């Protein structure tokens, strides 16, 4: 093993990076749901089920009915309130309103003591010790929060360690008396949920059916598992896409294992020949080889797990922001590696290494002793297999394409099958591609052209490096093309739909902040300010359409020129807008249309306090939000069906739009005492794109890891070439080539591999981008993404890949220059 330290090192690194990619993503995937589960556990403890409303709020009059249901051992009502901590730049607190005097045991009952009585006093709240420490609070300290456009003073009444109950509970959870929360919300008699614990001998499904009958269709009764499953469905695409990308990294890592095993075995073929001639069996030889590979795999796993954990930790903030910004789930605060993930890492690392090495190992163990003791003929064999391999790749593409057209088009994960077909076809077409390109090159100097041509001499070694790079590049370019197209589409969409000059929302509004409303007096005072041409209001509710939770928003449909806010993908604007202005119809976002399989002409059925409302759908508009989906009706119509309510945000249209920045400054001064956010049109657009970029940060990490593995592959290949082609190097030296010439020939080989991988990878990347945009995205998100070529990003990545190839070739090139001319050996050149 000492003889090939560099090869072993690069192979172990390749396996480790592959394992790290998978581990990182699995940690993130698991902990994103664990955070949600932790939230449920911290709030509901060991509740057997939870009653939630299909309408925006639940009446507390249902509570006695619940307690009176046979099989219910205990029940407790809860209110939930999102508030923003003042002067913290966006730290949110989720306040739970609980009934401290209810004759039931709370999940945190172990913490209850005499001091809890004090929490019934105005403004008293129990917070977690971690948050208290971060904020420098002691029991008795006062702090200010904002709820909508109001500021409220709270007092730290007690410290409750929710994270001791469940380690994934948010540190920003707080507990308050339920009546105080209702008072803060100005919603007396309304609660958000009722948690239920059953008698040990009660049958869950029977009790649920009984409760559903007693409480009527306006409520949903869910077990904690069903609630987690709903979150899991919401994150399905996010988690699946990341898993797929991490597996590509592992796939690229396998190429490295294959190449290095092949190279190491070829170098030791004489040793194996001698062993066989001394009586070693084929099985013994295979065992010997696989034991070494097993060791490489184990080392890769040992390195990969901490690397994966570190990568997950480093990206915790951006992933957490994505979860809370886009999917409105809990932020991830801590990471945990469960035991099964160690098992998974071990399986994929060791299994992957063995799988990568199996073919060369079997090949070597099956050879005749005489063949082992002769120079290798492997490369000629690959050269002759180039065409059949290419045809095999083409066949995979044709068959998968035909399958998709005939059967797969309506199967959700079919895009991944197409992606796998592309990723298999790429390596299979590589030998022919490399052979034909290198054969067609005419070397006019002892430089890059010569280097490129010489790559054809060791087709097997070169093909593996080119293939692994091509797979990495196709992933890199495919995703870049998809993200670039998506970003540009969103930019165009935002510039078309974000038409107001100034946007106003409360500091505590963050998507889920349904309670974060604007005071009506503030809205009317703002509307009367000079210089304001028009004010558009937005009110957003969480409602149910069947069993599907969606957002229903109300906007001023009569706003002059307001049609531009909702560019229609389907539907006739001339017919739609008169109905919308009259409050008789609804527009639905593309995401909702896709998820609920709705189209123009259908009716959107939503649960309202007075019963179901059936809105005719008159249009489907372009919508790029992930998650539950959004429908829009007229502001007044929303009030008619769901009761009057305040707006959550405002859009201001100025008489002099060029004065926007000045007016924003004026408004900030004028309403300095109100916890509001004033954002100019430009500012809001920038923020949208910032969130967009944040969402894909983890994807970029995976791209980088995959590229790093492929770059290791280039270095590995060149090291193999520097060893295998020692006679060729000696020949150049004998013919009078200087060391720097050998150096540049080798650097040229690295660049050549980079160029070949780039060319193939670009083809694969375009194919993958098309699959991502037109198949996977449509199936999982339902967005219409226009194709744009992000030239700047593509050029930058091309330069990065070639730069990486250059860097990867420096050390092997240096090693190659050390080959003396006296090393002309018997091996063929």
């Amino acid at each position: 093993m000492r003889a090939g330290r560099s090869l072993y090192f690069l192979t172990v690194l390749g396996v480790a990076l592959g394992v790290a990619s998978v581990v990182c993503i699995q940690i993130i995937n698991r902990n994103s749901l664990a955070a949600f589960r932790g939230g449920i556990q911290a709030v509901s403890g060991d509740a057997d089920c939870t009653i939630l409303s299909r309408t925006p709020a639940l009446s507390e009059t249902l509570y006695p009915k619940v307690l009176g249901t046979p099989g219910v051992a205990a029940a407790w009502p809860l209110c939930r309130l999102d508030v923003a901590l003042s002067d913290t730049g966006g730290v949110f607190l989720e306040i739970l309103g609980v009934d401290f005097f209810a004759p039931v045991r709370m999940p945190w009952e172990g913490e209850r003591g005499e001091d809890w009585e004090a929490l019934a006093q105005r403004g008293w709240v129990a917070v977690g010790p971690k948050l208290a420490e971060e904020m420098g609070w002691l029991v008795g300290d006062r702090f200010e929060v904002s709820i909508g456009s109001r500021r409220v003073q709270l007092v730290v009444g007690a410290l409750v360690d929710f994270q001791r109950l469940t380690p994934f509970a948010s540190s920003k959870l707080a507990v308050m008396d339920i009546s105080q929360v209702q008072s803060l919300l100005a919603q007396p008699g309304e609660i958000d949920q009722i948690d239920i614990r059953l008698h040990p001998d009660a049958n869950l499904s029977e009790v649920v059916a009984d409760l559903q009958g007693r409480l009527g269709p306006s409520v949903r009764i869910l077990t904690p598992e069903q609630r987690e499953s709903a979150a899991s469905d919401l994150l399905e695409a996010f988690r699946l896409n990341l898993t797929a990308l991490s597996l590509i990294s592992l796939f690229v890592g396998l190429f490295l294992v294959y190449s290095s095993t092949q190279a190491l075995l070829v170098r030791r073929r004489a040793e194996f020949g001698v062993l066989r001639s001394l009586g070693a069996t084929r099985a013994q030889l295979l065992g010997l080889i696989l034991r070494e590979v097993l060791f490489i795999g184990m080392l890769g796993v040992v390195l990969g797990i901490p690397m994966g954990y570190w990568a997950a930790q480093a990206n915790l903030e951006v992933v957490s922001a994505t979860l809370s910004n886009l999917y409105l789930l809990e932020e991830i605060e801590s990471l945990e590696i469960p035991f099964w993930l160690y098992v998974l890492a071990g399986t994929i690392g060791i299994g992957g290494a063995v799988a990568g090495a199996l073919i060369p190992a079997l090949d070597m163990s099956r050879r005749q002793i005489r063949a082992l003791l002769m120079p290798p003929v492997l490369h000629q064999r690959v050269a002759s297999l180039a065409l059949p391999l290419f045809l095999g790749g083409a066949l995979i593409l044709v068959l998968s394409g035909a399958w998709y057209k005939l059967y797969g088009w309506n199967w959700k994960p079919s895009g991944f099958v197409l992606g796998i077909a592309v990723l298999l076809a790429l390596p299979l077409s590589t030998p022919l591609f490399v052979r034909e390109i290198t054969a067609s090159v005419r070397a006019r100097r002892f430089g890059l052209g010569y280097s490129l041509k010489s790559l054809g001499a060791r087709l097997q070694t070169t093909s593996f490096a080119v293939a692994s790079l091509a797979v990495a590049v196709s992933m890199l370019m495919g995703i870049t093309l998809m993200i670039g197209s998506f970003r540009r589409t969103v930019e165009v969409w935002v510039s078309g739909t974000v038409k107001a000059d100034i946007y106003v929302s409360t500091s505590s509004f963050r998507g889920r902040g349904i309670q974060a409303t604007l005071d009506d007096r503030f809205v009317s005072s703002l509307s009367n300010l000079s210089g304001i041409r028009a004010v558009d209001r937005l009110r957003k509710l969480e409602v149910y359409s069947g069993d599907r939770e969606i957002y229903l928003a109300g906007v001023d449909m009569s706003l002059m020129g307001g049609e531009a806010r909702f560019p229609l993908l389907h539907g006739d604007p001339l017919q739609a807008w008169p109905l919308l202005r009259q409050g008789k119809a609804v527009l639905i976002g593309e995401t909702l249309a896709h998820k609920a399989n709705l189209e123009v002409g259908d009716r959107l059925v939503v649960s309202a306090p007075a019963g179901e409302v059936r809105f005719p759908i008159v249009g489907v508009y372009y919508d790029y939000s992930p998650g539950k989906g959004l429908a829009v009706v007229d502001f007044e119509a929303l009030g008619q069906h769901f009761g009057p309510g305040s707006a959550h945000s405002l859009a201001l249209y100025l008489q002099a739009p060029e004065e926007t920045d000045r007016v924003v400054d004026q408004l900030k001064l004028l309403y300095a005492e109100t916890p509001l956010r004033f954002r100019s049109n430009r500012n809001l657009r920038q923020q949208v794109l910032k969130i967009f970029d944040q969402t894909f940060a983890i994807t970029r990490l995976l791209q980088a890891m995959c590229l790093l593995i492929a770059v290791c592959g280039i270095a590995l290949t060149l090291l193999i070439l520097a060893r295998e082609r020692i006679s060729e190097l000696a020949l150049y030296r004998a013919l009078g080539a200087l060391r720097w010439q050998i150096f540049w020939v080798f650097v040229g080989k690295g660049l050549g591999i980079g160029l070949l991988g780039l060319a193939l990878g670009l083809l694969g990347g375009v194919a993958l981008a098309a699959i991502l945009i037109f198949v996977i995205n449509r199936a999982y998100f339902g967005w219409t993404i226009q194709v744009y070529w992000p030239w700047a990003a593509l050029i930058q990545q091309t330069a990065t890949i070639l730069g990486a190839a250059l860097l990867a070739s420096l050390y092997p090139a240096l090693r190659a220059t050390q080959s003396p001319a006296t090393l002309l050996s018997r091996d063929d050149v």
Partner: protein
Amino acid sequence: MVESVLSFRGVSKIYDSGVGIRYALREVSFDLSPGQRVAVEGRSGSGKSTLLHLAAGIDLPSRGEVWSEGRNLASLSERDRALLRRKGVGLVFQFFYLLSHLSVAENVGLPELVAGSRPSQFASRVQALLERVDLGDRAGDPIHQLSGGEMQRVAICRALLRRPRLLLADEPTGNLDDENSQQVLQLMLSLAEEEGSSLIYATHSRELASLADQRWQLHSGIMGPV
């Protein structure tokens, strides 16, 4: 007096294997005149390859001096020795060392390519040499389509491409059958004469050695006349 193409002055080459030293060459001295063709005879391990490596400046002597074109090779940097080899030394090897990714003509043209010339500058010279060895119509063929004798003829063309003053051949027929050996060696001797190159070739065959102007014997690193 005509200046020697190559001179060895008391040259010894010693290898230290860690457990003791071994003389590959011991106190070897000779002068090679312009146009002179010498065969070095000796059994395997007698020091023939070492002598040729030292003559080409690929390796340096442990003791003594090797002079080529009036310059003591030990006084030259590695770079200068490579340039000297590029300009004035042609090498032929037992195992041909033709590159499989290059065609016949490209293999012949390789020394010029290494020297920085463009193919258009040496294409006619390559073609002339190939025609001289009856391979004019095989210029574009891949190497693996040639027979052993043809491969060695291509290797000889490559060695003579830059009209070297010194042609060194290490067992040039060691990988060929008897009939091919005779033909190839005759061709190499004729070409060396035509091109005005001095020639040293190593062989263990007395019959082939007898074709040279002069024969030297190497035995355990010690040189003497046959």
